[in-house]
């Protein structure tokens, strides 16, 4: 694992190896996507149509934003399974606020994002303060937040007609041909990537994830770091939830069910190591795009939609196996080099 590699080959080598693996992953993923896109475009020319590309990239952007948050959590060796419930709850609450004219749109959106933050804080509290293992804590909040969603919804839904005119337009709006949602997602990915790469907080996240004991010795309070990433994950889930609502219009209490799997798959495919400590949010964003591409290809190539779940599963397994294989190979190579 990354930590042992670092321990055995010196301080700089670990980071270098992790970086090498990451860059390799991003490039190969990007390359794979280009090949896939070319293939699909040949078979189904309307793949390249503006409306199709908009459709694919808008949905992928929403998943990508949630994936960025999830990546942060996974980097610290935790997991947040409650993402879909956070998104669904935020989407419904915002829609409900608008339906009953409680708040104007900008304020409702702010409430939604704030709600996501609050939910993330709760997760962080459970994991970092009460020290509940993250898989248990977020499995529990997955259920609790969804239950709250159903409770608030009371069996009702909010339809497009209930929302203020033009509320869903941002999901279709483009700037210079690029959908607004994509721009938002890219901005978030770039911002978080910079934070991870250039700031002390970012380095701490990687440290806690790759070698918690060493981090503790260095004086890094992992509790604070873990609390922080869960909060960020909730915040980003809130943003994604608001965007979900704008994209779909009609929302009921089951919104965003099943998203957790997509988000985790995106993160894992994007090269974030499930054992923590390595990977980039750019990879996570690319992973989200990759999965969106697969889904779209299935539709355009007129293949059965039912393959989608199986593909998500296969993708996760292949990506994780590949990672482990790669890392082991790299470790062996590094050891061999050192032995010379």
């Amino acid at each position, binding site marked *: 694992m990354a930590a042992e590699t670092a321990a055995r080959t010196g301080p700089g080598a670990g980071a270098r190896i992790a970086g090498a693996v990451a860059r390799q992953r991003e490039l190969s993923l990007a390359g794979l996507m280009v090949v896939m896109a070319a293939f699909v475009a040949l078979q189904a020319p309307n793949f390249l149509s503006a409306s199709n590309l908009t459709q694919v990239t808008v949905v992928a952007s929403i998943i990508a934003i949630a994936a960025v948050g999830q990546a942060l959590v996974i980097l610290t060796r935790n997991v947040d399974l409650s993402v879909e419930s956070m998104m669904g709850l935020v989407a419904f609450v915002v829609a409900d606020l608008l339906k009953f004219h409680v708040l104007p749109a900008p304020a409702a959106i702010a409430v939604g994002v704030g709600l996501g933050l609050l939910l993330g804080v709760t997760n962080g509290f459970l994991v970092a303060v009460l020290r509940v293992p993250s898989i248990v804590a977020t499995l529990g909040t997955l259920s*609790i937040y969804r239950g709250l969603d159903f409770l608030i919804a009371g069996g009702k839904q909010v339809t497009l007609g209930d929302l203020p005119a033009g509320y869903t337009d941002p999901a279709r709006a483009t700037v210079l041909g690029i959908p607004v949602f994509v721009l938002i997602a890219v901005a978030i990915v770039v911002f978080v990537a910079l934070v991870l790469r250039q700031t002390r907080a970012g380095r701490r996240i990687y440290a806690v994830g790759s070698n918690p004991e060493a981090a503790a010795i260095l004086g890094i309070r992992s509790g604070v770091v*873990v609390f922080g990433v869960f909060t960020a994950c909730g915040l980003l889930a809130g943003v994604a939830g608001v965007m979900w609502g704008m994209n779909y219009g009609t929302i009921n209490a089951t919104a965003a069910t099943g998203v957790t799997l997509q988000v985790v798959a995106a993160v894992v495919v994007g090269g974030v190591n*499930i054992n*923590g400590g390595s990977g980039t949010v750019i990879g996570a964003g690319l992973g989200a795009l990759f999965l969106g591409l697969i889904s779209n290809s299935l539709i355009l190539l007129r293949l059965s939609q039912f*393959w989608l*779940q199986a593909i998500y*599963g296969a993708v996760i397994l292949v990506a994780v196996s590949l990672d482990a294989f790669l890392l082991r190979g790299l470790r062996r190579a590094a050891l061999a080099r050192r032995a010379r």
Partner: protein
Amino acid sequence: MSATGETPKPADAAVVVGETTSVGRSGPFRLRRLASWEALLALVLLGLVGLGAATSPKVFLTPGNFSNLTAAVMEVAIMALPMTLIIIVGDIDLSVESMLGLASAVLGFLWAEGVPLEVGIPVVLLMGAAGGLFNGLLVARGGLPSLVVTLGTLALFRGLALVVLGPRGISKFPEAFTDFGFGTVPGTPIPWPLVVFTVIAVVLGVVLHRTWIGRQVFAAGKNKDAARYSGVRVQRMRIALFVLSGTIAAFAGVILTARFASARADAGQGMTLTVVTIVLLGGVSINGGRGTILGVVLAAFTLAVLGNVLRLANVSAELQSIATGLLLILSVVIPSVARQVSSAIGRARRDRRPPVATAEPGEVQSLI
């Protein structure tokens, strides 16, 4: 570092609430023995039965209701039994609900194609074993974390179920089959699946708590490396446990199909959460190395009774799912907090001796 990513902790000599292993038996006060997790659960269960009798007097304590409430939870309870061993060993199997669905789908598919159930059921059980083997190989030989592997197979198996059967449901099964799932032992309100559950629970309980296999499971759960050096074939054991889990999940799929008289690819959706909740509520530590079958059995009934009492009192399904989530979290928080309190008290009392090693503040809990 062990496969779970955790550094091994020295065995806690101090008495810990919920500690039921041989190490924890050394409690200075009788009171603490009574406060074992199983006893606590039993009390909660009795309390719930009382609550049910009080709030729905006409209907709660009837054979029909008993039959309903147990039948509804049997598939989940049956899957919770091998899950107990898997979690004790330090792994987890999230894919059980999907293997259940795949089993249902394949069984239905075969039945629709004219294959008799006598052939279909063993085929499906073998498939469960194969799926478990797949999980086990990736985890034990591949060294991959079980959380992610089984998350992947959670999706993969479900996807395969959808590909096999599509969105349709297969029904029109023979009556003998559906009677097994839906009916009861003649003359009693005991559903047949409960009989199956009892048998499996007894067998696994004996194996886990009374045989050398069980001791090996606990040993591997506490410290994989130490267990391996002591001659325990850890990897082989983990694979075997995954195979067991897969086979039993497939069997649960057969039972569910019989109970609903319908085979569907989306059968069992959402069950993994309930299974994990039952196991953790039963006092099994998510970090491995501790837990009892008895606790899990009690937890299964507690959850079933709780759901039943709430439904009969017209409490909405939403509140029930909130209750389940809370229960899951509390079942981990309470022992953890109690442990901290107890060790703090212990430290205060024995202030000359060095403190018992517990989790450091802010220590990152690793993924399984």
